[in-house]
């Protein structure tokens, strides 16, 4: 593979930003708006009260939200977003038990050249059913998703639900490999990232990001296990799975893993998430894998403890 930087514009996720609570409002913490300075300017000056705008709605509802279109919605930065070519967004709350730590917002651009899907699955009558989703032009896949539900352990959402663990699935377009493989194959979906999204109360949410070969959610995915029962009392994390367009498989080749990749708090971007317990967005600078210019990382909590970090590199 060549070593030059991968083009940013071919990823499905185009912009990532982090909002954190401060003095009763959500304020801008970080963001990567590299290709849309106007949207960056509109964002850094913004803050949201509970129930206000997309981050505020997530705070109020306590659950992830997919915004399929900005026009006519409560979205506050509509003009700047549209000007930047962004068409949709998913906002993910980060809760440690009942405490909102932050909201991570990912903006996508879907057109004929950008394909992907973002889904939120919610517990209903012993199963997970589709609560919301953005599919761009993948209408058959959207229809299949609305007509399906998952029991515990079944499929990507059910697997994430039962294991309470982020899961990266490959080859989702292959028959038998994914419950909606036929429709996934039609639109070229290749990789699925499933994330448990803990929220206050007993409800269960699983977020799935389905990535196409040509316009993936990201070019590199990493799942880090930070649970004390895995890595001990010291704040650190172990790389348990990952895929990279440049380096290939990122997981330990032996079982049990021999010298697995570890990272400690404050060491590089993942270490920053371990240290702060907050989502993190970085554009350029030290710590990014060779060939990458941008990344975002999401912490996932088990009750009050940081359990996993999921990182995507654009």
């Amino acid at each position, binding site marked *: 593979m060549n070593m030059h930087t991968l083009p940013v514009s071919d990823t499905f996720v185009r912009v990532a930003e982090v909002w954190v609570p401060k003095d009763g409002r959500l304020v801008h913490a970080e963001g990567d708006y590299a290709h849309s300075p106007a949207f960056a300017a509109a964002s850094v000056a913004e803050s949201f009260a509970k129930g206000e705008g997309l981050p505020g709605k997530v705070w109020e509802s306590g659950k992830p939200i997919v915004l399929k279109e900005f026009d006519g919605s409560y979205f506050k930065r509509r003009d700047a977003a549209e000007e930047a070519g962004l068409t949709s967004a998913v906002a993910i709350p980060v809760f440690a038990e009942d405490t909102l730590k932050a909201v991570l917002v990912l903006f996508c651009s879907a057109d004929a050249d950008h394909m992907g899907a973002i889904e939120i699955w919610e517990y209903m009558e012993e199963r997970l059913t589709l609560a919301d989703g953005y599919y761009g032009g993948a209408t058959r896949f959207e229809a299949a998703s609305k007509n399906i539900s998952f*029991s*515990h*352990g079944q499929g990507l959402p059910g697997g994430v639900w039962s*294991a309470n663990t982020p899961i990266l699935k490959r080859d989702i377009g*292959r028959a*038998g490999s994914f419950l909606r493989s036929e429709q996934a194959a039609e639109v070229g979906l290749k990789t699925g990232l499933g994330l448990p999204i803990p929220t206050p109360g007993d409800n269960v949410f699983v977020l799935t990001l389905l990535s196409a070969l040509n316009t993936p959610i990201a070019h590199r995915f990493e799942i880090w296990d930070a649970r004390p*029962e895995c890595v001990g009392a010291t704040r650190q994390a172990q790389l348990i*799975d990952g895929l990279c367009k440049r380096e290939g498989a990122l997981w330990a080749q032996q*079982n*049990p893993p021999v010298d697995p990749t570890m990272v400690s708090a404050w060491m590089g971007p993942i270490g920053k998430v371990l240290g702060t317990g907050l989502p993190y967005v970085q554009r350029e600078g030290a710590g990014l894998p060779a060939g990458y210019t941008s990344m975002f990382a999401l912490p996932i909590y088990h009750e009050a403890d940081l359990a996993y970090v999921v990182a995507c590199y654009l």
Partner: protein
Amino acid sequence: MQKLVIIGAGMASGRMLEHIHETDPAAFSVTIFNAEPRGNYNRIMLSPVLAGDRSFEEIITHDDDWYAQNKVTTRFGERVTGIDRERKVVIGEQGEVPYDKLILATGSTPFIIPVPGHDLPGVVGYRDLEDTNAMIDAAANQGASAVVIGGGLLGLEAAAGLRMRGMEVTVLHIAGHLMDRQLDEAAGYLLKLDLEKRGIKVMTEANTKAIVGEGKAEKVLLDDGTELAADIVVMAAGIRPAGQLGQQAGLEMGRAIKVNAQMQTSDPDIYAVGECVEFDENIFGLVAPLYDQAKVLANTLLGQEDAFTVRELSTKLKVTGCDLFSAGDFAEGEGREDIVFRDPKRRVYKRLIVEDDKLIGAVMYGDTADSNWFFGLIKDGTNIEEMRETLIFGPSFQGGGAAASDPLAAVAALPLDAEICGCNGVCKGDIISAIEGGVTTLDGVRMTTKASASCGTCTGLVEQVLAVSLGDGFEISKEKPVCKCTDLTHEDVRRLIKSQELKSQPAVWQELAWKTPNGCHVCRPAINYYLISDWPLEYQDDLQSRFVNERNHANIQKDGTYSVMPRMWGGMTTPDELIAVANAAKKFNAAVKVTGGQRIDLLGIKKEDLPAIWSDLNEAGMVSGHAYTKGLRTVKTCVGTDWCRFGTQDSTGLGIKLEKKLWGSWTPHKVKLGVSGCPRNCAEATCKDIGIICVDSGYQISVAGAAGMDVKMTESLVDVATEAEVEEWVSAFMQLYRENAKYLDRAYKWVDKVGLDWVKEELSNPDTRKALVERFDISQSVYRKDPWADHIRNRSEQYQHLADLTEEAVA
């Protein structure tokens, strides 16, 4: 350049080739055969491929480019049909290849259980990419069912993968718990819970009888009559070394191809590596020793000294979210000590096995953070004497000073926000506040803070907080725990078994934080009884948790022989029964004693004769008198109105009815009944656990008498008019006693504790009485049976000598 031929492109030979090419790429001209139409891939990662957690491309270790770059001639998809050692050639389907050195790396094959239907289409082993693809294809049919036979590492990974792909999956495992070679029962229990949480059905002690279907597998039939729908059946019952080529070539064989420490076979020019070899009576299935072998073989071929040694192995299951670790030897044994830590809330179980001050085994579930450290202690044989007290807490706790070894100091050192009661989220500070507010007892803390009020496993900790805070002002509860395995009392355990719906012994050990792996001789019989009593339909009686008399269904005597006592309903017998008893007594040379309970005891029976004498008595229609049980013993009666001038009711008939209703039931302690036909009380009913005195107006039921170490007259429970009411009240009393008494409390002791007024109040309510009788009847639907007949049918071998040395000597 020497010609090196390799048969098998698996992980061992692949690793060996890497070593050779790293060290001396020009040393050999290499040809490699592989029956699979592809080169080397990371076979142990097929499970993640099945689950969709990896793609096949990701697990390829040597692709075509690698073989080309390293000038390896590949003969993939071609089977080797033989080896001619004379001519030193390998015979492939497409022709012969000469060798100077030959390596057999033929791996292993899945063991296919030879049940009827094992060769139907749809039955697959789990070994290679073809098997994996067959399973993925089966999963394409939405809503399809899979049955996985084998609950070991591979079977469970297959099950998890198939479930992720949307199939309805059942795992059948022949042993009592999953992964029984790697895990103990407690960890197996947690693993089962985790898999069930994923929607996988797990059946242990499941014997496959047949696989049936029209032209393909459709159902799996079990021994017990269970039928399971199956679109695909995965046989994951183990692997067998594939050593046939070596055998055909005349190499020395054991269970596999025998090699020395240089991986050399009995032919000096032929080597073997991987799962097809036997070294020092060991065969291999995990990858770590295969890699060691590969390195040794590469060095040997390159003329460097090296020797393979067997090393300690650890195990990790590749099912996302299941954290388990096992290493070393974890069997129980004399001189071995268990150190156990459980956290029911976090579903954590850790067990260390120590022998001669060394850690020899470790099993962990739910928290494996320190597994490498423990594994190191096992491998290195480190002396752990000085850290024994805190060993279970891992490396970060070593050298922890007083707080590490003194529980009270440790509690004192806890910060105020340290959680004490996980169930109710109560911190140490909450308890301290309650104590500062005037609370001085455990009950007070429970009422004020709810700590220890739910599962109760933090009771000891709460008491320690009280002790630390109040000093001499606090007295630890006088109610004793069941035994040293737990801080919980019998009453706590009974309550929690019901409230948490604990239906197996492993569930009790784990959820109630037992301090030992499987309980001890004190608690196991009690827990076994409580589970029988509360979950008669779900729980399977555990013979190993019974005292010897109950295990053997006879009373052991001081000379090691047994007494056998058939039941004589209400003390009545017949000439035929007496003839059968007499014949049995003569045949087995028994002493004969008429008992105070109106039965005949045959004494001096040898253990090995028990099934035969029971068989003879069964044939005469007689069943066990349960003279050895914590259950219904005898119902003593007088002759009643049939023969006695003073009899007011048919006391014999009523006694027989009661005995036939109550026999076989397990109770906290033995239960004796008496039914007297008039107040003269010839059946001595007023010193029994339950006594009935017949009077002209009906029946006086009294309870809680005793005539043993304690002598106590019964106390009146109720007077009723009809036999049916007697049956109802007696059954209800039995069930109330069964459900509430502490194990080994006779009825009179239990009544004394709870008060006769409470018993009367409960039983006076017709609805309560009816419900108790219903529950008793449900239990009796399982247990009202003759244990002798069952033992003759199913357990005769347990009464035989382990070996007949006489026969061996003759032979």
